[in-house]
């Protein structure tokens, strides 16, 4: 094959390869979040059991651990798919940059290994280990889940803010893997993701039990499950808005074009406005229908209402990501984050006044909605990160077209993948529903 030929193949493969990566990553990330968060909930419920001796807590922990087992197993295989896809879809990325950014994957290999070992011990150890020892064996599951997520996101943050090497005549020299791992984007991005994982877990689980209570369940089991999961999610909601702000400031520094796309800002200006909502129009080069807060973006990005923010017009066309997608995704994410914070404030005020949770049906419905919405917020956040980096796969160093596979049949593979994941997704939901529908012990305070 000659060079022009290769370039056509690369362009043809770009869209299906990106769709394939986006879809399999988007699927896995939900399971990954639950894999990070569920162990915390299991440990909390089991800790209540150890403290109080109340069997109902144990039942709750045990049932959550079964759900976790299913989610972990599906997450393990969907994660395996991703690790293979790094090479299968983006062989040039890994062939060229593997030595710079492979280290977090090696570390993640260990973290995942420890997680799998202790998941086995915890899940099958309920009747084999003394109660307290069993509780201890759950800790490594929670910690290594956390570490896995951390390591993988450091690799992604490097793609946004590549460092830890020098280029001499196109050759990579002076590779420093730790410098690559701990780049300027690492802190904000890993924190943002880990907090998101706890938010997604907390709100998804809470959503499920809120719905059961709305449907008339009076069992203390559901109340307790709701309380624990909200205790995980709610405190993180305000934290996430602070971390999100930190993230935006890092993006302003390391990827100004991404920030401009997130905000739909075309013109470089001082007192740059913050656009709320709106649809960026690439032909008129304006963001239509948005509410503008003058100086808002300058302040958010640089802490100064008069700071200059570079707009899309001042970047070469070839370096600009799909603006509308990035802007809308960003608006959705922020738009979901806001009610999460408001619900936290509501709960805090109600608790301060009455020493109890809000009990209205409206509150419960809100919680029901926040489950799927929290997942949507996390997914749109990834759209901002990944689509916002386009057309680069390694910001400033390698374009996505240069990295993509030249293998035939990528569209067909994507079609088959959709079908397989559909079956697996349905299977997961069916089995989780069956687990949830198992009858509870008659006596509400015994097992």
């Amino acid at each position, binding site marked *: 094959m000659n060079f022009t030929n290769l370039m056509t193949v690369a362009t043809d493969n770009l869209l299906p390869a990106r769709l394939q990566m986006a879809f399999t990553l988007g699927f896995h990330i939900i399971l990954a979040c639950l894999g990070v968060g569920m162990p915390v909930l299991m440990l909390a419920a089991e800790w209540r059991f150890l403290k109080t001796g109340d069997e109902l807590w144990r039942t709750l922990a045990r049932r959550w651990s079964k759900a976790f087992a299913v989610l972990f197993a599906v997450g393990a295989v969907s994660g395996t798919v991703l690790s293979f896809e790094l090479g299968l879809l983006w062989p040039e990325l890994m062939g060229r*940059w593997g030595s710079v950014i492979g280290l977090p994957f*090696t570390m993640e290999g260990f973290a995942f290994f420890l997680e799998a070992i202790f998941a086995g011990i915890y899940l099958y150890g309920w009747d084999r280990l003394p109660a307290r020892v069993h509780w201890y064996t759950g800790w490594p599951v929670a910690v290594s889940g956390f570490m896995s997520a951390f390591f993988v996101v450091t690799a992604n943050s490097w793609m946004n803010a590549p460092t830890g090497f020098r280029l001499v005549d196109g050759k990579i020299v002076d590779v420093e893997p730790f410098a690559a791992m701990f780049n300027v984007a690492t802190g904000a991005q890993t924190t943002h993701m880990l907090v998101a994982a706890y938010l997604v877990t907390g709100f998804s689980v809470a959503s499920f039990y809120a719905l059961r209570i709305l449907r008339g369940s009076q069992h203390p089991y559901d109340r307790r499950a709701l309380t624990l999961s909200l205790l995980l999610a709610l405190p993180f909601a305000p934290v996430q808005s602070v971390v999100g702000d930190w993230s935006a400031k890092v993006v302003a520094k390391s990827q100004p074009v991404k920030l401009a796309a997130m905000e739909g800002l075309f013109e470089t200006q001082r007192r740059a406005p913050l656009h709320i909502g709106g649809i960026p129009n690439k032909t008129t080069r304006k963001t239509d229908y948005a509410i503008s807060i003058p100086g808002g973006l300058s302040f958010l990005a640089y802490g100064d209402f008069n700071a200059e923010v570079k707009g899309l017009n001042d970047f070469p066309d070839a370096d600009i990501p799909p603006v509308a997608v990035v802007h809308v995704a960003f608006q959705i994410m922020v738009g979901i984050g806001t009610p999460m914070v408001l619900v936290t404030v509501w709960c805090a005020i109600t608790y301060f006044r009455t020493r109890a949770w809000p009990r209205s049906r409206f509150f419960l419905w809100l919680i029901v909605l926040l489950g799927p919405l929290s997942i949507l917020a996390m997914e749109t956040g990834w759209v901002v990160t990944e689509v916002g980096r386009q057309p680069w796969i390694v910001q400033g160093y390698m374009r996505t077209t240069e990295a993509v596979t030249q293998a035939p049949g990528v569209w067909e593979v994507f079609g088959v993948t959709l079908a397989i994941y559909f079956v697996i997704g349905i299977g997961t939901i069916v089995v989780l529903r069956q687990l949830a529908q198992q009858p509870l012990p008659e006596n509400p305070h015994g097992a």
Partner: protein
Amino acid sequence: MGPDDILLIVMLTALTLYALLGGADFGAGVWEFTTALQASDKERQHIYKAIGPVWEANHVWLIFVLVILLNGFPIAFAGLSRALWLPLLLALCGIVFRGASYAFRSHSHGSHRELRLWEAVFAIASTATPFFLGAAAGAVASGKLAITSTGEYNDDYLSGWLSPLAVFTGFYMIVMCAFLSAVFLFREADHVNDSELKLLWRQRSLSTGIWMGVLSLGGLVMVELESPSLVAGFLSRGWPLILVSLTCGVGSLVEVWRGRSTRAVIASSGAVAAVIWGWGVSQYPVILPPGITSAMAKAPDNVLWIMVGVIMTGAVLLLPALAYLFMLFKSNPAEPKRVES
């Protein structure tokens, strides 16, 4: 010995453990597949109980091999991904169905028919996956990959993994998994002292063991016909390991015959490990034939040394944990008390 050699040894060790532990898990599915119509519920329970707790950990060895290759030998990782695009995707397909259906089967409270469905998916995927992984390995061994000598694309994406040696290796891998699984399950049956299951797995170990022997000799002939470079490696360096493998193989049959299950497990593991190491040693320093050697594909030395450090640190955490897992579930013959909540 440079850091690249240390990493190659680590990788080959991980690959061996995947072949043994993961292979036995695959084999359990192969047995379900081949005996779907006759197996009793008791037999199935025996299988599921044996692999349950260690299942996920055994799978991670594959990820481990992959990330070390990606990090330490990125050019080989990219070349392998290009050359074996299709068989690796098909293997992935199998891995997804297998992992998911196993979890569904273990935790589903659905109808009998639903359980049977997931069992069937598990059995089929467990048989297909080692075939494609084996074919991928066989393609590497054959040296006829769909890439150029520097790892760039070659048009023909079917060449290599559909060569006679590769297809043979695919089937060989299925039988190997079935054999390992039979011997491992023989030991499990021995531990719970169930004479009926013991008899069953003893017979199965013997029959697949004999097949393994025949196929192994056939495999040597195949290599001789198809992969001259590997033959040269066998003759200069790899031959002692071939002898070790044959000895262990015969030894495992003798031990199964005598009913000494733990020794049989050790001998059969030795036979399989020696095949993998024989291949690796004979092919060294080539990672991806024909052209990609360790020296060509490796990351800079400072990166490799950091990896060695990370792996040693990780091993300090990992090995005791792994030992605890296996001690808890594999050396305790007593039935656990079952308390359903």
